């Protein structure tokens, strides 16, 4: 039985690298697939990490279900979009604006959704992913601006296309930075909202982020550590992880039926966070996130 890696085979990356590919315009963020002995591991981790990181829309949905209200002051200012000249900042902020877009969409703030769509599209264009996120997407969103459900579907579908396009072109590192930016923004929103809406549900959502954080660190760790942007993000995430409690030991789960739907019980949920932990996580997340947007 052979075990397959997701995404492209190593040969594919070697050939793509030899042909130049679609490298970003500013800082390179490239790795040398031939020399990088952890390439196969990176491919495997890339596969894993994508599944472990909740999408920005799911994060926003979890916040809403936890009773949080909409607070536009936590979003990245749209005026910042022109400040991002390096590919790493563009990738991180494509994720950040994507999370902001999802947040505005889930809370049905159409006007802000359109503003954040324009920002995200601007960055997508500068990262050479306009094929996946072009003007026609913006036009489609404009046309459906009063249909929240359609708007959310378009947002999901567009980010899916961007991610797929990046991977199609061997730019998994840009995809990983985009995902990291989106995840950090989601945690930033949750911790900021928790300042005025501190409930057990919201605290648990913050504690739950320990699982995707661990996977995100593994993903970033498999990239070349001589890339300052990627290694910088990994260091940030490592520091953040140190503020959470230790991961729970895996425990057996059970499946029962509830109104015709399977319910998986048991398992091991992350431990609740203390007041001190919450304060430290809130401050650290804000420092990291503000470093990315400024």
């Amino acid at each position: 039985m052979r075990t397959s890696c997701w995404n492209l085979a190593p040969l594919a990356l070697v050939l793509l690298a030899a042909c130049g590919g679609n490298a970003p315009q500013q800082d390179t963020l490239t790795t040398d697939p031939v020399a990088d002995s952890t390439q196969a591991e990176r491919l495997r981790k890339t596969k894993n990490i994508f599944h472990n990181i909740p999408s920005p829309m799911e994060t926003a949905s979890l916040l809403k279900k936890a009773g949080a209200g909409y607070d536009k002051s936590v979003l990245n200012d749209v005026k910042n979009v022109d400040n991002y000249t390096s590919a790493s900042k563009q990738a991180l902020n494509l994720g950040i604006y994507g999370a902001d877009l999802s947040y505005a969409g889930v809370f049905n703030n159409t006007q802000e959704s359109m503003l954040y769509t324009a920002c995200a599209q601007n960055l997508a264009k500068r990262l050479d992913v306009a094929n996946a996120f072009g003007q026609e997407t913006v036009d489609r969103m404009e046309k459906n601006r009063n249909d929240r459900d359609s708007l959310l579907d378009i947002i999901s579908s567009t980010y899916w296309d961007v991610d797929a396009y990046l991977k199609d072109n061997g730019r998994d590192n840009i995809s990983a930075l985009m995902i990291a930016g989106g995840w950090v923004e989601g945690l930033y929103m949750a911790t900021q909202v928790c300042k005025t809406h501190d409930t057990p549900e919201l605290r648990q959502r913050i504690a739950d982020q320990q699982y995707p954080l661990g996977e995100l660190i593994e993903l970033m760790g498999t990239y070349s550590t001589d890339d300052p942007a990627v290694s910088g993000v990994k260091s940030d995430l490592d520091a953040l992880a140190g503020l959470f409690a230790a991961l729970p030991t895996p425990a057996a789960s059970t499946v029962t039926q509830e109104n015709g739907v399977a319910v998986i019980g048991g398992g091991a949920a992350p431990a609740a966070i203390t007041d001190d932990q919450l304060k430290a996580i809130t401050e650290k997340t804000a420092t990291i996130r503000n470093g990315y947007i400024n």
Partner: protein
Amino acid sequence: MKHLHLLALIAAISALPTAATAQCRAFVKNKCAANMLPYKFNETFNAAQLGPGEEAEVDLTFFSGQDYRLMVCAHPIIGEVNWKLMDGTGQTLFESLASAPKPSFEFKVATTQKLKVHIDVPEDKSSATEMLNYGCVGILVGFKE
């Protein structure tokens, strides 16, 4: 002339993997994504070309209180793919071919937890030729907004 042929060959070979993943993207988007409705599917592209006898494992985090649909969508050329959802101890919670084939599984989790999806592509026992059939396998995770 010889060099031109060589360059053309290199260009063609280097384009193959990209074309394959682009086809995979189109397959998942056109043939699978619609089956996730009314769930909002995860914005991450999770698909690959797999061949006979290959397997893959993927970890996923599920959050308490959310309604999920998990679907593994495979091109028919590679046959009936079996996939399992397992807990952190390796215990199987769902198996797609355990009885009647089920392409998707709808569920909730009582507490937030990390689960694993294990995918097996069947061996191609009928193949009388050297040709191996590779096909796209996509994993889609959707939640109810």
